[in-house]
Structures are given as structure tokens and as C-alpha cells.
């Protein structure tokens, strides 16, 4: 087993563990958010192992650095220290939902896993800043522009929704 493989399983286990922690942690929203950060960072590591360097970097910057912070802001803003709700309604849909999700997993992955393509030889600089950036501004120019509009709309939307007084 190569070092990269070791690292992969390490990061993978970390990501899985913290993801589970996030879902299972019903007491503290802040802790859940922090678990998410750990997952993100672990995944960034995996990305790098899979030759996605730029993506890995952005993953840390945007996700860990911006998105989760946003979560934390809101948690603080709403003063949601604990996550304890009165007893909920029937568990049946939830239990069934979990079962269904697990079935999906069990059904899908073994079949998919058997038909995966073999790894290709990578060109020079694959996943690096230059190649990805070039692709982003040439071939994927249009989605990029659309995404910019998307961000504008999201900003406007968030402002509309969350601004205290706009009337």
C-alpha cells in the first residue's frame, strides 16, 4: 500500500467519522458545524490525492472558510446553542427513509463498482491551477458566467430574505 493509499483511507475514515458525528450530534449545533468542517477538510485531502489540487484548495477556502462560517454565524445569530426539540411526530417515515437510503446504497454501489472505467494516464499539470483555470475560462466560459449571475441572484435573494427592513 502506497502512502497515498494510506492517506486516502485515513482521510476517508476521518470524513466518514465526522459526517456521522455531525448527523448523530443532536445536542449541539455548533459542534455539528465543526464536524462538518472536519469532513470538508478531510475531503480536501482526498481531492488532492486524486490529482485535484485546485479543487482541494478551493474546497478548504470556500467550504471550510466561508460556508461553514456562515452556518456558525447564523447559529449564533439565532442563538441556537442547543438542538433539543420537543418529541417529534411518528418515527415511521424517518425509519423507512433511512432504510430506503441504505437500500439505495446497497443496491447501487456494488453494481456500479463492478463496471468502473480503468484509470487513464494523466496529462501534465492535470488538476493544477493553470489547466483548470484555462478550462474554466475557455471551454467552460458560459457556465462560469451563468454561475456569476447565480451568485448575484443568491446575494439579492439572501438580502431580500434576511434584511431586517426593506419595506
Amino acid at each position: 500500500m502506497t502512502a497515498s493509499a494510506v492517506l486516502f483511507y485515513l482521510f476517508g475514515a476521518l470524513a466518514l467519522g465526522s459526517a456521522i458525528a455531525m448527523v448523530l450530534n443532536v445536542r449541539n449545533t455548533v459542534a455539528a458545524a465543526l464536524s462538518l468542517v472536519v469532513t470538508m477538510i478531510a475531503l480536501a485531502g482526498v481531492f488532492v490525492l486524486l490529482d485535484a489540487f485546485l479543487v482541494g484548495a478551493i474546497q478548504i477556502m470556500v467550504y471550510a472558510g466561508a460556508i461553514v462560517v456562515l452556518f456558525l454565524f447564523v447559529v449564533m445569530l439565532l442563538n441556537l446553542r442547543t438542538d433539543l426539540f420537543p418529541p417529534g411526530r411518528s418515527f415511521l417515515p424517518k425509519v423507512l427513509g433511512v432504510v430506503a437510503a441504505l437500500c439505495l446504497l446497497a443496491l447501487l454501489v456494488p453494481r456500479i463498482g463492478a463496471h468502473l472505467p480503468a484509470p487513464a494516464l494523466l496529462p501534465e499539470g492535470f488538476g493544477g491551477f493553470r489547466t483548470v483555470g484555462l478550462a474554466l475560462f475557455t471551454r467552460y466560459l458560459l457556465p462560469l458566467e451563468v454561475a456569476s449571475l447565480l451568485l448575484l441572484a443568491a446575494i439579492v435573494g439572501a438580502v431580500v430574505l434576511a434584511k431586517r427592513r426593506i419595506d
Partner: protein
Amino acid sequence: MVPLSHVIWLSAALFTIGVIGALTRRNLIVILMSIELMLNAVNLSLVGFARVWGDLGGQVFVLMVIAVAAAEVAVGLGIVISLFRNRDSVNVEDVSLLKW
């Protein structure tokens, strides 16, 4: 590199955890996080496939997904805030005025 199937397993497992979180947690913010987790799981697959095919499209896709996720979170949290102002609650089960 590790076998792609392991990447897929990891990604699918994370996705499933996200799904389970979205289905079972009652805190809206945690549900949002679970959805983020699902998107991230997909990102993992995308990166894996991009690696295997040697195609940059997958990685660009991941960047876009990250952007979209950011936008989604912004809007989603905005909705949660505006809801919280009216209801003083982030329990998803309190939001059931409209039904049948």
C-alpha cells in the same frame, strides 16, 4: 491511486449519511448541513471520475458545485432566518401549515 470503487464507496456512504441526516434531523440548520454533505459527496465522485477519465470537466464541475452550494446556503439560511423571525423556531416539524 486507490481503486476507484473505494472512492465511489466513500462518496456513496457520505451521500447516504447526508440523506439520513436530512431525513431524520429536525433542526433546519443541520438539515442544511446534511445537504451540503450530500453535495460534497458528489464532489468526491466527480473528482474521482475526473481522475479516472483524465478529464478536467469533472473538476470544473466541482468548482461550480461549490459555487452553487455557497449560493444555496446563503439563500437557505436567509429563508431560515426569515422563518425564525416569524415563528421563533428552527424545527422543521413546526412548518406544516400547508398540507392535504
